[in-house]
């Protein structure tokens, strides 16, 4: 469990940095995911102990929210909006072409670990759809040329 040891110290720092907050669990989970790219299983008992919660409660929170991952994503993450406004601008067809180009379905990661494709329900770019977020960067009026941007 070398990995677990590597996580433990950093998780402890994060827990310490969030002491005194009211309702600190979401900020803690965001910080852990920011540090490791996912919320490692081994962090859950440590968080639970620090917040005097049960492991089940912490696991329940982690698994409730779409944002938190239990394993790292691919090198690049494409989030494509699936909501109604983007659909009226052809988002479904764009999504199908991107899925085909990448060879993955929603939530899938390409075999080489290069790209993860995630659905998102609204980025607030509803007057310039279809919208996407690529590695945290917002893109309006997208088409399948998005795939070329994450080819490297």
């Amino acid at each position, binding site marked *: 469990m070398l990995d677990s040891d590597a996580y433990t110290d950093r998780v402890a720092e994060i827990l310490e940095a969030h002491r005194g907050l009211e*309702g600190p669990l979401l900020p803690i989970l965001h910080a852990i995911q920011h540090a490791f790219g996912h919320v490692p299983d081994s962090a859950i008992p440590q968080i639970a102990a620090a917040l005097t919660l049960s492991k089940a409660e912490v696991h329940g929170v982690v698994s*409730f929210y779409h944002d938190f991952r239990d394993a790292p994503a691919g090198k690049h993450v494409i989030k494509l909006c699936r909501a109604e406004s983007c659909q009226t601008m052809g988002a479904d067809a764009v999504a199908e072409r991107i899925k085909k180009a990448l060879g993955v379905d929603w939530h899938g990661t390409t075999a080489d670990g290069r790209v993860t494709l995630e659905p*998102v329900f609204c980025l607030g770019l*509803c007057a310039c759809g279809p919208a996407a977020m690529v590695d945290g960067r917002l893109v309006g009026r997208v088409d399948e040329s998005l795939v070329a941007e994450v080819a490297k």
Partner: protein
Amino acid sequence: MKIYVPLDSAAVALGADALVTAITSEAARRGVAVEVVRNGSRGMIWLEPLVEVASAAGRLGFGPMTLADVPGLFGDLTTHPKAIGLVEDHPWMRGQTRLTFARVGVVDPLSLDDYRAHGGLVGLDRAKSMTKAQIVTEVTDSGLRGRGGAGFPTGIKWRTVSEAAADQKYIVCNADEGDSATFADRMLMEGDPFTLIEGMAIAGLACGATKGYVYIRSEYPVAIRVMSQAVTIARAAGVLGAAFDMEIRVGAGAYVCGEETSLLNSLEGKRGVVRAKPPLPALQGFMGRPTVVNNVISLASVPVIMAKGAQHYRDFGLGRSRGTIPLQIAGNVKHGGLYECAFGLTLGQIVNDIGGGTASGRPVKAVQVGGPLGAWFPPSLFDTPFGYEEFAGKDGLIGHAGLTIADDTIDMLTMARFAMEFCAIESCGKCTPCRIGSTRGVETLDRLARGDSSAMPILTDLCNTMKLGSLCALGGFTPYPVMSAITHFPDDFARAKEAAE
């Protein structure tokens, strides 16, 4: 030379950041001193990125700008191919009544001096000279109703919290703007964050609350950044402090957290599961304490109400829908964006006159008003005036005032199925009608799609159960898009039958 390039998400998504780099290097190449201000968006999304150049006559607009258009900004501006003239004189701007969004797109969002110079903090200063009850009365008299969608009178909610006895009370701003076609909260937070801060500080005074939280969805990185910076600036300037302070919190991708009680659970670090009411959040909200939970636009409308008086605000509007509403015109539309005006325009005026019809040039088939839980309206209902009661009277809702326009290529059975699928994905799982009903709804619509018309009575019955039996609006309102699609577009459901035969 002073040039404005929006930092707004929509402008950035269409290339604004690259324009800043190009403008800076072009200016350096020419030896011209340029000050670039990152403003909010004016709301004319079809013109984004909309770059503005300050001139003696006013701010000249250029859009939609591409990198190739940048050198032209340093030449004769009157012949620039993307020139739209004075931004303030643009018909889209002139037709509006900008009260809540008066400063958005105009000011530097992170300059408190700019904020003051454009009338900021006048409302807070006035509130400081008033009693709690007087502030609550002013907000009640303005007729302001919750802009998140429920339309509950803001002043009444404040009074409940104000009169509750507790050692600690809270102001929570719901910035979990998850509805498709809505982006007013985002634009306000990105373009004029101090207005929200001022509104929350006034709410704090009115209710005796010393602590506030803004719960912003994680899909809004720019809003999170701008709001966080603005809070730091406001704290350093003494606008926030011992009397009232606030924190920015980030959601984690759960649509249901836009519902106030699940938002409170999420803020407390729990699963975003809906709470049964009573107790009302106004009496037992965040950490079990009396809590105001208001939408961004509700809170951001308070400073202008306090600055100009309740009467000024309530003089706009129709019926019981007082004041202005920031319409968000989206989807397949020629002129999409944010348009703030008094309540009362008809749906047809909004879609055709302001929005200019579809982007594709094809006929408008349907407009979904109020987000994914709102009804689809056909052109035959385009005479409906935009107001809470007026839309309720046509079995619809205005919600957060977002409009998704769709052309005649849209299939309403597909959209009805999507509504159920979305509810199934986003249900918090607490109540059965929503958790199970949405999945059964998808299956039932699939039966209809296969031509099994015997599924129709089951779907109608299911929608009735969800509407009456769900704990919150997610399960309770999902029937709106489904039943409106069936009622107004029966052919789309019948065609599927013929295809199967």
